[in-house]
């Protein structure tokens, strides 16, 4: 402790500049942080990798179920993870309709759901899906690196995951999704 000793000591000339030096380091760090705003979303570790093997039973009577082989037939697909009990899923429904109307094939996985509830949800919010698989224990959801609903994946013609969209697809997200689908078609 520098305070012990004889007479009126003065502090060392180096030490008094230490706070300013530390502040300089902090300043440089945040300037760097602000200058390179990285995306902070947690991305699926599955991006660029093929889908795991799965085969899900149909979630409703009038659409077939979904298996991994349906997603590697040469055409890109939009895979939407949803649930009838998920309120934000209803908010993104019009955007899925829009994508479907532009000729994009949308397939779905209903998470922990009942056929009646899914049917009622689709009757209320529209049904853009060509196939809907039922994932009763979230096994497939976790397998493809999704942790919540809604989430949407762009899958290319070879069954490779190209892009993961976490959360609701808002109107302003549509161009990005379209770009990713175009990239998948190449």
């Amino acid at each position, binding site marked *: 402790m*520098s*305070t012990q*000793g004889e007479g009126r000591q003065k502090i060392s000339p180096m030490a008094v500049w230490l*706070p300013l030096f530390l*502040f300089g380091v902090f300043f440089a*760090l*945040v300037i760097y942080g602000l200058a390179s*705003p990285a995306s902070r979303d947690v991305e699926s570790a599955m991006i660029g990798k093929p889908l795991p093997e799965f085969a899900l039973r149909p979630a409703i009577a009038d659409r077939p179920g979904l298996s991994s082989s349906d997603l590697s037939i040469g055409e890109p697909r939009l895979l939407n993870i949803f649930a009838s*009990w998920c309120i934000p899923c209803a908010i993104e429904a019009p955007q899925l309709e829009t994508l479907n109307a532009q000729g994009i094939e949308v397939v779905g996985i209903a998470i*922990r759901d009942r056929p009646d509830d899914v049917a009622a949800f689709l009757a209320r919010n529209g049904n853009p899906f060509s196939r809907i698989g039922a994932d009763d224990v979230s096994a497939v959801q976790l397998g493809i690196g999704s942790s919540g609903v809604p989430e949407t994946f762009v899958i290319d013609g070879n069954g490779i995951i190209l892009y993961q969209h976490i959360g609701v697809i808002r109107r302003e997200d549509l161009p990005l999704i379209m770009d990713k689908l175009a990239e998948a078609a190449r």
Partner: protein
Amino acid sequence: MIAEIGLAALWLAAALAALQLIAGSLSLTGKAESLTGTVRPVAIVQGALALLAFAALIALFARTDLSVKLVAMNSHSAKPLIFKIAAAWGNHEGSMLLWVTVMGLAGAFVAQFERRLPEKTMLATLAGQAFVSLGFYAFLLISSNPFERLNPPAGEGNGLNPLLQDIGLAFHPPTLYLGYVGLSVAFSFAIGALLTRQVGPAFAKAMRPWVLGAWIFLTLGITAGSYWAYYELGWGGWWFWDPVENASLMPWLAATALLHSVSVLASRDALRIWTVMLGVVAFSMSMVGTFLVRSGILTSVHAFAVDPERGSFILVLLAIYIGGALTLFGLRAATVSEGKQFALVSREGALVFNNVMLTAILGIVLFGTLYPLVTEVFDTKVSVGPPYFNPVGAVFFVPMVLILMVGPLLRWRKDSFARIAKVLILPVILMLGAVAVVLGIAEYRGIDGALPFVGIVLAAGLAIASLLPLRERNLLRTPLTTWGMVLAHLGVAVALFGMAVESAYKVEKLVAARVGETTSVGPWKVELRGIEPVPGPNWTAIEADLLASYKGGATSAVKPQSRSFWTPPQMTTESALLTRWNGQLYAVIGDEAQDGRWQLRLWWKPFVTLIWFGGIMIALGGLLSLIGRVAADIRRGVARGRIADRHESRAQ
């Protein structure tokens, strides 16, 4: 019209702040003696104008004037009046206006009442205060005008973040702001003292009530914020080491250190440089915290309107104030003598030791908070959490608590441990007893698992040790400041006990329950009686009707909700709490599973309420000290006035 009055008042206040800065600085050089007399009145009028601007904003929100952009963005005509008013500061622009208002009022108060310091130091202090205010006025007027009109007016408002629609939270930000502003006054005093080389007991006495007041508000703010996160987020935790929480903790740590060192300076004329540096650091930490929260440079669970541009503005202010202050510190500190000396074993020694520990913890928190930024430089993303903060912080926290038991018993200047050893027998026995109890009922769970038990033992020792300064004293004659210290230190023990017991003995249970089923969690039996929809003013909820009984005793209803707000659409969980003297039952309702069962999350949290109870005790201890100090100051002021009168009458 109200908006225009508010804007005009804001511009005028900014102009007066500029005048205060110029007049204060010029009179320091000794070239413009004529301006000297203007500084104090200008500071007072500036505070009044800022208050007028803030009152105008409150009025606009109370009337839901949708032709004002800020109101349309953040309020809604259907909201209860109290939340309309709270919405005035529940956003970026309004909170900045609140900041300058409180700062203006604090400046006015200092200008009106502070007469102990040499006039030059006072002018430098007020100029410093104006300098800091001016940056925030510029921020408001240039990039975030709260009074901007909307043409045409909006049809309806955009609502307020439903998470924030909570009475506790309505008052949480202002509480923290009062703390930050108090620290800004301390900062201005430090600058004034450095500029005029008047770092001594008089400076410390003038600064102390502001530090104490700021510290009380920061303590309350953190306590309330922690409780809010606990019951509103529905995750069952009371501290997440989240950047926003750390942002509020760092100024508190610095203020705690400052509070103790300013007391040493005031009564012993020691620790001059250390006190000045902490004065600068404490305010720096509140600015750094504000910057980290507002800039969005770090991700956080707390919903905050993030805007990189505003972040840059705060960063510029930060660079000017803190960079400038630390440069001034570097230039002047070497010429300020350390003050009176003292032995290692003395009350000063203990205070210095704990100040170093507090500063080390502050460094650890700051480093952990910024670490994700550091690693981003090397292109890896990490998140830093309890596995870092808890054990590393404990390295410094444990010795600090041990010294905290001893420090208040030591004499100033020079003492020996032998003198107080006899007194310390009681806490030591209690701690050994706690060790025995803890070892008897706990299985070993590694270093991390051991920490809560260390906490229990320390809390037991500190609880007794904190009362020891009252021994052999006439309790009625004991000064209020001593009572304050005892209460605050006891509060630390109480809060620590709550944290440690909760961490060591909480029971958590996640079940999918059918209506009619009963679950047990710890000593509780909880029955799910039904699920009901409940309408609210701007939300609808699904409510679980639970019946809980403690060890088979009387039953009470517990009703957790899952709320859906519609403006803007958002889901929140409303946890339900059942409080007993020895803990809380915490219930959250989750989603409905496919077969008619409902997810229920239940916790039994023994003694968890002591965490916040302890926090309130700490703040109350601060309040007692503050009352004691201010009362003494007033008594002394009155006495001095009488002496002056007598001198005057004798001279006539």
